Protein backbone atom coordinates (compact mmCIF):
# COMPACT_ATOMS: atom_id res chain seq x y z
CA UNK A 1 0.00 0.00 0.00
CA UNK A 2 2.61 2.46 1.07
CA UNK A 3 5.23 3.04 -1.49
CA UNK A 4 8.85 2.33 -0.66
CA UNK A 5 9.69 5.93 -1.29
CA UNK A 6 7.29 7.15 1.39
CA UNK A 7 8.80 4.79 3.92
CA UNK A 8 12.27 5.75 2.80
CA UNK A 9 11.51 9.39 3.46
CA UNK A 10 10.14 8.56 6.91
CA UNK A 11 13.30 6.68 7.55
CA UNK A 12 15.49 9.44 6.28
CA UNK A 13 13.80 11.92 8.58
CA UNK A 14 14.23 9.65 11.57
CA UNK A 15 17.88 9.17 10.64
CA UNK A 16 18.14 12.93 10.22
CA UNK A 17 17.03 13.32 13.81
CA UNK A 18 19.88 11.09 14.96
CA UNK A 19 22.24 13.11 12.80
CA UNK A 20 21.10 16.37 14.36
CA UNK A 21 21.51 14.82 17.78
CA UNK A 22 25.09 14.15 16.84
CA UNK A 23 25.50 17.71 15.65
CA UNK A 24 24.28 18.85 19.06
CA UNK A 25 27.00 16.80 20.68
CA UNK A 26 29.52 18.52 18.49
CA UNK A 27 28.60 22.09 19.40
CA UNK A 28 30.54 23.83 22.10
CA UNK A 29 28.78 27.21 22.11
CA UNK A 30 25.38 27.76 23.61
CA UNK A 31 23.86 29.68 20.73
CA UNK A 32 25.01 27.08 18.25
CA UNK A 33 23.55 24.43 20.48
CA UNK A 34 20.24 26.27 20.54
CA UNK A 35 20.18 26.56 16.76
CA UNK A 36 20.84 22.85 16.54
CA UNK A 37 18.03 22.21 18.94
CA UNK A 38 15.67 24.28 16.83
CA UNK A 39 16.76 22.25 13.84
CA UNK A 40 16.18 19.09 15.85
CA UNK A 41 12.63 20.14 16.57
CA UNK A 42 12.14 21.11 12.95
CA UNK A 43 13.24 17.71 11.74
CA UNK A 44 11.00 16.13 14.34
CA UNK A 45 8.04 18.19 13.16
CA UNK A 46 8.73 17.20 9.58
CA UNK A 47 9.08 13.59 10.56
CA UNK A 48 5.83 13.58 12.54
CA UNK A 49 4.00 15.38 9.78
CA UNK A 50 5.23 12.85 7.27
CA UNK A 51 4.09 10.02 9.50
CA UNK A 52 0.71 11.73 9.74
CA UNK A 53 0.58 11.87 5.98
CA UNK A 54 1.53 8.26 5.31
CA UNK A 55 -0.53 6.87 8.17
CA UNK A 56 -3.44 9.14 7.36
CA UNK A 57 -3.69 10.08 11.02
CA UNK A 58 -4.84 13.66 11.38
CA UNK A 59 -4.12 13.97 15.07
CA UNK A 60 -0.43 13.57 14.34
CA UNK A 61 -0.55 16.85 12.45
CA UNK A 62 -1.42 18.47 15.76
CA UNK A 63 1.62 16.84 17.33
CA UNK A 64 3.74 18.13 14.48
CA UNK A 65 2.32 21.61 14.90
CA UNK A 66 3.03 21.52 18.62
CA UNK A 67 6.58 20.42 17.94
CA UNK A 68 7.04 23.15 15.38
CA UNK A 69 5.50 25.92 17.42
CA UNK A 70 6.84 25.19 20.86
CA UNK A 71 10.05 23.38 20.35
CA UNK A 72 11.32 24.88 17.16
CA UNK A 73 10.26 28.47 17.83
CA UNK A 74 9.07 29.41 21.30
CA UNK A 75 11.45 27.46 23.47
CA UNK A 76 14.61 28.28 21.49
CA UNK A 77 13.67 31.96 21.44
CA UNK A 78 12.93 31.91 25.14
CA UNK A 79 16.17 30.12 25.89
CA UNK A 80 18.01 32.54 23.68
CA UNK A 81 16.70 35.43 25.72
CA UNK A 82 17.45 33.61 28.90
CA UNK A 83 21.04 33.06 27.87
CA UNK A 84 21.43 36.72 27.04
CA UNK A 85 19.93 37.74 30.35
CA UNK A 86 22.08 35.30 32.23
CA UNK A 87 25.08 36.60 30.33
CA UNK A 88 26.48 33.16 29.62
CA UNK A 89 26.43 33.31 25.84
CA UNK A 90 30.20 33.37 25.62
CA UNK A 91 30.70 30.32 27.77
CA UNK A 92 32.50 27.45 26.20
CA UNK A 93 31.70 24.14 27.62
CA UNK A 94 34.42 21.60 27.79
CA UNK A 95 33.25 19.07 30.31
CA UNK A 96 34.49 16.17 28.19
CA UNK A 97 36.29 16.53 24.86
CA UNK A 98 34.19 16.51 21.74
CA UNK A 99 36.04 13.52 20.37
CA UNK A 100 35.36 11.31 23.35
CA UNK A 101 31.73 12.41 23.44
CA UNK A 102 31.31 11.49 19.80
CA UNK A 103 32.85 8.09 20.35
CA UNK A 104 30.54 7.54 23.29
CA UNK A 105 27.59 8.64 21.14
CA UNK A 106 28.64 6.18 18.49
CA UNK A 107 28.71 3.43 21.05
CA UNK A 108 25.22 4.38 22.22
CA UNK A 109 23.84 4.19 18.70
CA UNK A 110 25.45 0.80 18.22
CA UNK A 111 24.00 -0.28 21.53
CA UNK A 112 20.48 0.82 20.72
CA UNK A 113 20.63 -0.96 17.39
CA UNK A 114 21.91 -4.14 18.88
CA UNK A 115 19.22 -3.93 21.52
CA UNK A 116 16.34 -3.22 19.19
CA UNK A 117 17.41 -5.86 16.73
CA UNK A 118 17.70 -8.50 19.38
CA UNK A 119 14.69 -7.67 21.50
CA UNK A 120 12.16 -7.03 18.78
CA UNK A 121 13.28 -9.59 16.27
CA UNK A 122 9.72 -10.49 15.27
CA UNK A 123 8.52 -6.95 14.67
CA UNK A 124 8.23 -5.30 11.30
CA UNK A 125 11.76 -4.36 10.24
CA UNK A 126 10.84 -0.76 9.53
CA UNK A 127 9.24 -0.22 12.91
CA UNK A 128 12.24 -1.89 14.43
CA UNK A 129 14.65 0.47 12.75
CA UNK A 130 12.52 3.46 13.68
CA UNK A 131 12.57 2.31 17.27
CA UNK A 132 16.34 1.94 17.10
CA UNK A 133 16.59 5.52 15.88
CA UNK A 134 14.30 6.81 18.62
CA UNK A 135 16.22 5.01 21.30
CA UNK A 136 19.43 6.48 19.89
CA UNK A 137 17.95 9.99 20.06
CA UNK A 138 16.87 9.42 23.66
CA UNK A 139 20.28 8.11 24.67
CA UNK A 140 22.09 10.89 22.85
CA UNK A 141 19.89 13.42 24.65
CA UNK A 142 20.93 11.86 27.94
CA UNK A 143 24.53 12.01 26.80
CA UNK A 144 24.17 15.74 26.14
CA UNK A 145 22.84 16.17 29.65
CA UNK A 146 25.64 14.14 31.18
CA UNK A 147 28.51 15.73 29.32
CA UNK A 148 27.48 19.37 29.70
CA UNK A 149 28.18 21.49 32.70
CA UNK A 150 25.89 24.35 31.87
CA UNK A 151 22.32 24.10 33.09
CA UNK A 152 20.95 25.63 29.89
CA UNK A 153 22.45 22.94 27.76
CA UNK A 154 21.12 20.37 30.16
CA UNK A 155 17.65 21.69 29.42
CA UNK A 156 18.38 21.37 25.74
CA UNK A 157 19.55 17.81 26.23
CA UNK A 158 16.39 17.03 28.10
CA UNK A 159 14.22 18.50 25.37
CA UNK A 160 15.99 16.53 22.65
CA UNK A 161 15.49 13.42 24.72
CA UNK A 162 11.83 14.13 24.76
CA UNK A 163 11.89 14.55 20.99
CA UNK A 164 13.15 11.01 20.78
CA UNK A 165 10.18 9.82 22.78
CA UNK A 166 7.80 11.63 20.47
CA UNK A 167 9.48 10.02 17.50
CA UNK A 168 9.03 6.59 19.02
CA UNK A 169 5.41 7.32 19.78
CA UNK A 170 4.52 8.48 16.27
CA UNK A 171 6.28 5.57 14.68
CA UNK A 172 4.40 3.12 16.87
CA UNK A 173 1.02 4.08 15.37
CA UNK A 174 -1.31 4.18 18.24
CA UNK A 175 -0.50 6.81 20.80
CA UNK A 176 -3.57 8.86 21.56
CA UNK A 177 -3.46 12.58 21.02
CA UNK A 178 -4.30 13.31 24.61
CA UNK A 179 -1.18 11.60 25.83
CA UNK A 180 0.97 13.51 23.42
CA UNK A 181 -0.52 16.85 24.28
CA UNK A 182 -0.12 16.16 27.95
CA UNK A 183 3.49 15.10 27.39
CA UNK A 184 4.11 18.25 25.43
CA UNK A 185 2.62 20.40 28.15
CA UNK A 186 4.45 18.62 30.91
CA UNK A 187 7.64 19.34 29.06
CA UNK A 188 6.65 22.95 28.80
CA UNK A 189 5.96 23.08 32.51
CA UNK A 190 9.26 21.42 33.20
CA UNK A 191 10.89 24.00 31.00
CA UNK A 192 9.33 26.86 32.91
CA UNK A 193 10.22 25.35 36.24
CA UNK A 194 13.81 24.75 35.22
CA UNK A 195 13.98 28.23 33.73
CA UNK A 196 12.84 29.80 36.97
CA UNK A 197 15.18 27.54 38.82
CA UNK A 198 18.07 28.67 36.66
CA UNK A 199 17.66 32.27 37.63
CA UNK A 200 17.56 31.26 41.26
CA UNK A 201 20.82 29.35 40.83
CA UNK A 202 22.40 32.30 39.18
CA UNK A 203 21.31 34.70 41.87
CA UNK A 204 22.86 32.56 44.51
CA UNK A 205 26.02 31.36 42.91
CA UNK A 206 26.75 33.83 40.16
CA UNK A 207 27.02 30.98 37.71
CA UNK A 208 24.86 28.45 35.97
CA UNK A 209 27.54 25.85 36.11
CA UNK A 210 25.87 23.02 37.97
CA UNK A 211 29.24 22.09 39.39
CA UNK A 212 28.82 25.09 41.70
CA UNK A 213 25.90 23.33 43.36
CA UNK A 214 28.08 20.51 44.56
CA UNK A 215 29.75 22.67 47.12
CA UNK A 216 26.47 23.15 48.88
CA UNK A 217 25.50 19.58 49.21
CA UNK A 218 24.78 18.48 52.74
CA UNK A 219 27.01 15.45 52.63
CA UNK A 220 30.18 17.33 51.96
CA UNK A 221 31.32 18.81 55.20
Amino acid at each position, binding site marked *: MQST*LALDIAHLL*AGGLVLVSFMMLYQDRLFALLNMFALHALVLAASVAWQAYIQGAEHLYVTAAIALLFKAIIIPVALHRMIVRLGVHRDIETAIG*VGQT*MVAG*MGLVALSMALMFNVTSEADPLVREDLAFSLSVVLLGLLVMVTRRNAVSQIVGFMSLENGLVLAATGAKGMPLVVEISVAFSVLVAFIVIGAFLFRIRERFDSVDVGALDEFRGDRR
Partner: protein
Amino acid sequence: MVLTTQLMFQAFQMLLVLALAPLLTGVVRKVKARLTRRRGASIFQPYRDLFRLMRKEAVIADNASWIFRSAPYLIFAATWVAAALTPTFRTGLMFSWSADLIVIVALLGSARFFLALAGMDVGTAFGGIGSSREMMIAAFAEPAMLLAVFTVALVAGSTELSSIAAFMTSDAVGLRVSLALALFALIMVAIAENARIPVDNPATHLELTMVHEAMVLEYSGRHLAMIEFASFLKLLLYASMIGAVFAPWGLAEDGAGVARNALGVMVYLGKLLGAAILLALFETATAKMRVFRVPDFLGAALMLGFLGALLLFAGGRF
Protein backbone atom coordinates in the same frame (compact mmCIF):
# COMPACT_ATOMS: atom_id res chain seq x y z
CA MET B 1 36.71 0.45 -33.83
CA VAL B 2 35.10 0.05 -30.42
CA LEU B 3 38.52 0.28 -28.90
CA THR B 4 39.27 3.52 -30.70
CA THR B 5 36.05 5.17 -29.58
CA GLN B 6 36.71 4.00 -26.06
CA LEU B 7 40.20 5.35 -26.18
CA MET B 8 38.91 8.61 -27.59
CA PHE B 9 36.41 9.00 -24.80
CA GLN B 10 39.12 8.33 -22.25
CA ALA B 11 41.39 10.89 -23.87
CA PHE B 12 38.52 13.34 -24.08
CA GLN B 13 37.82 12.98 -20.39
CA MET B 14 41.49 13.53 -19.56
CA LEU B 15 41.44 16.74 -21.54
CA LEU B 16 38.03 17.74 -20.22
CA VAL B 17 39.07 17.60 -16.58
CA LEU B 18 42.23 19.46 -17.45
CA ALA B 19 40.26 22.17 -19.22
CA LEU B 20 37.55 22.52 -16.60
CA ALA B 21 39.57 22.37 -13.38
CA PRO B 22 40.82 25.97 -13.38
CA LEU B 23 37.40 27.17 -14.46
CA LEU B 24 35.77 25.53 -11.44
CA THR B 25 38.13 27.31 -9.08
CA GLY B 26 37.59 30.55 -11.00
CA VAL B 27 33.84 30.26 -10.61
CA VAL B 28 34.12 29.52 -6.90
CA ARG B 29 36.30 32.60 -6.44
CA LYS B 30 33.98 34.72 -8.50
CA VAL B 31 30.87 33.66 -6.60
CA LYS B 32 32.64 34.22 -3.31
CA ALA B 33 33.63 37.70 -4.40
CA ARG B 34 30.10 38.53 -5.49
CA LEU B 35 28.71 37.25 -2.22
CA THR B 36 30.94 39.63 -0.32
CA ARG B 37 29.93 42.44 -2.71
CA ARG B 38 33.25 42.59 -4.46
CA ARG B 39 33.48 42.46 -8.18
CA GLY B 40 36.16 39.77 -8.17
CA ALA B 41 38.50 38.64 -10.89
CA SER B 42 37.25 37.04 -14.06
CA ILE B 43 36.35 33.40 -13.89
CA PHE B 44 39.21 32.79 -16.31
CA GLN B 45 41.78 34.28 -13.98
CA PRO B 46 43.14 30.86 -12.84
CA TYR B 47 44.11 30.09 -16.47
CA ARG B 48 45.96 33.39 -16.69
CA ASP B 49 47.65 32.67 -13.39
CA LEU B 50 48.80 29.30 -14.63
CA PHE B 51 50.18 30.73 -17.86
CA ARG B 52 51.91 33.52 -16.00
CA LEU B 53 53.52 31.05 -13.62
CA MET B 54 54.63 28.86 -16.50
CA ARG B 55 56.41 31.75 -18.16
CA LYS B 56 58.21 32.84 -15.03
CA GLU B 57 61.63 31.77 -13.94
CA ALA B 58 61.62 29.21 -11.12
CA VAL B 59 63.48 30.10 -7.97
CA ILE B 60 64.78 27.05 -6.17
CA ALA B 61 66.21 27.14 -2.68
CA ASP B 62 69.89 26.32 -2.32
CA ASN B 63 69.21 23.21 -0.38
CA ALA B 64 66.45 21.76 -2.52
CA SER B 65 66.97 18.21 -3.77
CA TRP B 66 65.57 16.22 -6.67
CA ILE B 67 62.46 15.50 -4.64
CA PHE B 68 61.62 19.17 -4.64
CA ARG B 69 61.96 19.39 -8.39
CA SER B 70 60.24 16.17 -9.37
CA ALA B 71 57.42 16.20 -6.81
CA PRO B 72 55.24 18.76 -8.69
CA TYR B 73 55.08 16.54 -11.76
CA LEU B 74 54.33 13.42 -9.73
CA ILE B 75 51.64 15.19 -7.74
CA PHE B 76 50.10 16.59 -10.87
CA ALA B 77 50.20 13.23 -12.64
CA ALA B 78 48.68 11.28 -9.75
CA THR B 79 45.89 13.79 -9.31
CA TRP B 80 45.24 13.98 -13.02
CA VAL B 81 45.02 10.20 -13.34
CA ALA B 82 42.67 10.05 -10.36
CA ALA B 83 40.49 12.74 -11.90
CA ALA B 84 40.55 11.03 -15.27
CA LEU B 85 39.32 7.76 -13.77
CA THR B 86 36.38 9.34 -11.97
CA PRO B 87 33.18 9.33 -14.02
CA THR B 88 32.37 12.85 -15.12
CA PHE B 89 29.99 12.81 -18.04
CA ARG B 90 29.78 9.09 -18.77
CA THR B 91 30.27 5.77 -17.00
CA GLY B 92 32.31 2.81 -18.14
CA LEU B 93 35.39 4.62 -19.30
CA MET B 94 38.02 2.47 -20.84
CA PHE B 95 40.38 2.34 -17.90
CA SER B 96 37.95 3.00 -15.07
CA TRP B 97 38.13 -0.63 -13.95
CA SER B 98 41.83 -0.34 -13.27
CA ALA B 99 41.16 1.73 -10.19
CA ASP B 100 38.20 1.57 -7.87
CA LEU B 101 37.18 4.15 -5.32
CA ILE B 102 39.68 2.90 -2.73
CA VAL B 103 42.49 3.18 -5.25
CA ILE B 104 41.47 6.71 -6.19
CA VAL B 105 41.53 7.74 -2.55
CA ALA B 106 44.92 6.11 -2.15
CA LEU B 107 46.24 7.81 -5.29
CA LEU B 108 45.42 11.15 -3.74
CA GLY B 109 47.23 9.83 -0.68
CA SER B 110 50.33 9.25 -2.80
CA ALA B 111 50.12 12.79 -4.12
CA ARG B 112 49.87 14.11 -0.59
CA PHE B 113 52.81 12.00 0.52
CA PHE B 114 55.06 13.65 -2.04
CA LEU B 115 53.68 17.09 -1.37
CA ALA B 116 54.43 16.69 2.33
CA LEU B 117 57.94 15.47 1.52
CA ALA B 118 58.48 18.44 -0.78
CA GLY B 119 57.38 20.70 2.05
CA MET B 120 60.11 19.30 4.25
CA ASP B 121 62.80 19.28 1.60
CA VAL B 122 64.09 22.80 1.92
CA GLY B 123 64.33 22.66 5.69
CA THR B 124 62.40 25.72 6.76
CA ALA B 125 59.91 25.94 9.57
CA PHE B 126 57.05 26.87 7.26
CA GLY B 127 57.32 23.81 5.08
CA GLY B 128 57.49 21.59 8.13
CA ILE B 129 54.46 23.15 9.77
CA GLY B 130 52.45 22.65 6.62
CA SER B 131 53.54 19.06 6.11
CA SER B 132 52.96 18.14 9.71
CA ARG B 133 49.44 19.55 9.74
CA GLU B 134 48.60 18.13 6.36
CA MET B 135 49.52 14.66 7.54
CA MET B 136 47.53 15.13 10.73
CA ILE B 137 44.48 16.15 8.73
CA ALA B 138 45.01 13.21 6.42
CA ALA B 139 45.24 10.85 9.36
CA PHE B 140 41.73 11.81 10.37
CA ALA B 141 40.30 12.33 6.92
CA GLU B 142 41.34 9.02 5.43
CA PRO B 143 39.46 6.73 7.81
CA ALA B 144 36.39 8.97 7.48
CA MET B 145 36.67 8.82 3.71
CA LEU B 146 37.10 5.09 3.76
CA LEU B 147 34.06 4.56 5.92
CA ALA B 148 31.99 6.73 3.60
CA VAL B 149 33.35 4.66 0.71
CA PHE B 150 32.38 1.49 2.56
CA THR B 151 28.85 2.75 2.98
CA VAL B 152 28.49 3.65 -0.66
CA ALA B 153 30.16 0.45 -1.79
CA LEU B 154 27.92 -1.69 0.38
CA VAL B 155 24.77 -0.06 -0.92
CA ALA B 156 25.87 -0.41 -4.50
CA GLY B 157 27.59 -3.76 -4.05
CA SER B 158 30.72 -2.54 -5.75
CA THR B 159 33.68 -0.27 -5.22
CA GLU B 160 33.92 0.63 -8.88
CA LEU B 161 32.75 4.18 -9.42
CA SER B 162 31.16 3.30 -12.74
CA SER B 163 29.11 0.48 -11.25
CA ILE B 164 28.18 2.66 -8.28
CA ALA B 165 26.98 5.45 -10.54
CA ALA B 166 25.02 2.96 -12.64
CA PHE B 167 23.44 1.52 -9.52
CA MET B 168 22.59 4.91 -8.11
CA THR B 169 20.58 5.82 -11.20
CA SER B 170 18.50 2.67 -10.90
CA ASP B 171 15.25 2.52 -8.93
CA ALA B 172 16.66 0.06 -6.44
CA VAL B 173 18.32 2.77 -4.38
CA GLY B 174 15.54 4.89 -2.95
CA LEU B 175 16.38 7.27 -0.18
CA ARG B 176 18.66 5.86 2.43
CA VAL B 177 19.74 7.15 5.77
CA SER B 178 23.15 5.59 5.42
CA LEU B 179 23.75 7.31 2.11
CA ALA B 180 22.77 10.65 3.60
CA LEU B 181 25.27 10.11 6.39
CA ALA B 182 27.93 9.08 3.90
CA LEU B 183 27.22 12.20 1.85
CA PHE B 184 27.73 14.41 4.89
CA ALA B 185 30.94 12.61 5.79
CA LEU B 186 32.21 12.81 2.24
CA ILE B 187 31.52 16.53 1.99
CA MET B 188 33.31 17.20 5.25
CA VAL B 189 36.29 15.17 4.08
CA ALA B 190 36.25 16.92 0.72
CA ILE B 191 36.37 20.29 2.46
CA ALA B 192 39.34 19.22 4.54
CA GLU B 193 41.18 17.55 1.68
CA ASN B 194 40.83 20.53 -0.60
CA ALA B 195 42.09 22.93 2.05
CA ARG B 196 38.87 24.93 2.07
CA ILE B 197 37.33 26.99 4.84
CA PRO B 198 36.76 26.09 7.69
CA VAL B 199 39.73 23.70 7.74
CA ASP B 200 42.22 25.77 5.81
CA ASN B 201 42.03 29.02 3.94
CA PRO B 202 42.97 28.81 0.27
CA ALA B 203 43.33 32.58 -0.01
CA THR B 204 45.70 33.23 2.87
CA HIS B 205 49.43 33.45 2.67
CA LEU B 206 51.30 34.58 5.69
CA GLU B 207 49.44 33.22 8.59
CA LEU B 208 50.43 30.63 11.11
CA THR B 209 47.17 28.82 10.57
CA MET B 210 47.70 27.91 6.98
CA VAL B 211 48.36 24.36 5.93
CA HIS B 212 48.46 23.85 2.20
CA GLU B 213 49.96 27.22 1.38
CA ALA B 214 52.68 26.75 3.98
CA MET B 215 53.79 23.53 2.36
CA VAL B 216 54.15 25.04 -1.07
CA LEU B 217 55.66 28.30 0.10
CA GLU B 218 59.02 27.59 -1.51
CA TYR B 219 57.58 26.80 -4.91
CA SER B 220 57.59 29.24 -7.78
CA GLY B 221 57.33 29.36 -11.54
CA ARG B 222 56.41 26.22 -13.42
CA HIS B 223 56.62 24.04 -10.32
CA LEU B 224 54.08 26.17 -8.54
CA ALA B 225 51.91 26.06 -11.66
CA MET B 226 51.91 22.25 -11.52
CA ILE B 227 50.99 22.21 -7.86
CA GLU B 228 48.25 24.80 -8.27
CA PHE B 229 46.90 22.88 -11.22
CA ALA B 230 46.91 19.69 -9.16
CA SER B 231 44.89 21.38 -6.44
CA PHE B 232 42.37 22.66 -9.01
CA LEU B 233 42.11 19.12 -10.33
CA LYS B 234 41.58 17.75 -6.86
CA LEU B 235 38.65 20.07 -6.26
CA LEU B 236 37.17 19.03 -9.58
CA LEU B 237 37.72 15.39 -8.73
CA TYR B 238 35.84 15.62 -5.47
CA ALA B 239 33.02 17.53 -7.12
CA SER B 240 32.73 14.90 -9.86
CA MET B 241 33.03 12.04 -7.39
CA ILE B 242 30.27 13.33 -5.17
CA GLY B 243 28.25 14.14 -8.26
CA ALA B 244 28.72 10.69 -9.75
CA VAL B 245 27.72 8.94 -6.54
CA PHE B 246 24.98 11.13 -5.13
CA ALA B 247 23.68 12.93 -8.19
CA PRO B 248 24.34 10.47 -11.01
CA TRP B 249 21.64 11.79 -13.30
CA GLY B 250 22.57 12.55 -16.84
CA LEU B 251 25.63 10.33 -16.98
CA ALA B 252 25.87 8.82 -20.44
CA GLU B 253 26.12 5.06 -20.45
CA ASP B 254 28.75 3.01 -22.12
CA GLY B 255 27.98 2.70 -25.81
CA ALA B 256 25.68 5.70 -25.96
CA GLY B 257 25.78 7.94 -28.99
CA VAL B 258 27.54 11.23 -29.42
CA ALA B 259 24.41 13.29 -28.72
CA ARG B 260 23.84 11.46 -25.45
CA ASN B 261 27.46 12.07 -24.48
CA ALA B 262 27.15 15.73 -25.35
CA LEU B 263 24.11 15.90 -23.09
CA GLY B 264 26.18 14.21 -20.39
CA VAL B 265 28.81 16.90 -20.70
CA MET B 266 26.18 19.62 -20.43
CA VAL B 267 24.67 18.06 -17.31
CA TYR B 268 28.13 17.67 -15.88
CA LEU B 269 28.82 21.35 -16.41
CA GLY B 270 25.58 22.12 -14.62
CA LYS B 271 26.57 19.93 -11.70
CA LEU B 272 29.94 21.61 -11.43
CA LEU B 273 28.31 25.02 -11.44
CA GLY B 274 25.97 23.90 -8.68
CA ALA B 275 28.86 22.53 -6.66
CA ALA B 276 30.82 25.75 -7.10
CA ILE B 277 27.92 27.90 -5.92
CA LEU B 278 27.23 25.69 -2.92
CA LEU B 279 30.89 25.65 -1.95
CA ALA B 280 31.17 29.41 -2.26
CA LEU B 281 28.02 29.91 -0.19
CA PHE B 282 29.28 27.60 2.51
CA GLU B 283 32.73 29.18 2.59
CA THR B 284 31.31 32.67 2.82
CA ALA B 285 29.01 31.71 5.63
CA THR B 286 31.61 29.97 7.78
CA ALA B 287 34.65 31.16 9.63
CA LYS B 288 37.92 29.31 9.64
CA MET B 289 38.41 27.16 12.69
CA ARG B 290 41.52 26.81 14.81
CA VAL B 291 43.77 24.09 13.56
CA PHE B 292 43.22 22.02 16.67
CA ARG B 293 39.51 22.01 16.12
CA VAL B 294 40.13 20.21 12.84
CA PRO B 295 40.42 16.76 14.47
CA ASP B 296 37.00 17.36 16.05
CA PHE B 297 35.58 18.35 12.69
CA LEU B 298 37.01 15.33 10.96
CA GLY B 299 36.23 13.16 13.95
CA ALA B 300 32.62 14.12 13.36
CA ALA B 301 33.00 13.08 9.72
CA LEU B 302 34.51 9.82 10.89
CA MET B 303 31.61 9.21 13.21
CA LEU B 304 29.08 9.96 10.48
CA GLY B 305 30.83 7.59 8.13
CA PHE B 306 30.95 4.97 10.82
CA LEU B 307 27.30 5.45 11.62
CA GLY B 308 26.44 5.01 7.98
CA ALA B 309 28.53 1.88 7.68
CA LEU B 310 27.12 0.57 10.94
CA LEU B 311 23.56 0.98 9.73
CA LEU B 312 24.40 -1.03 6.66
CA PHE B 313 26.37 -3.66 8.49
CA ALA B 314 23.57 -4.06 10.99
CA GLY B 315 21.31 -5.00 8.14
CA GLY B 316 17.84 -3.83 7.34
CA ARG B 317 17.01 -1.28 4.75
CA PHE B 318 18.84 1.83 5.77
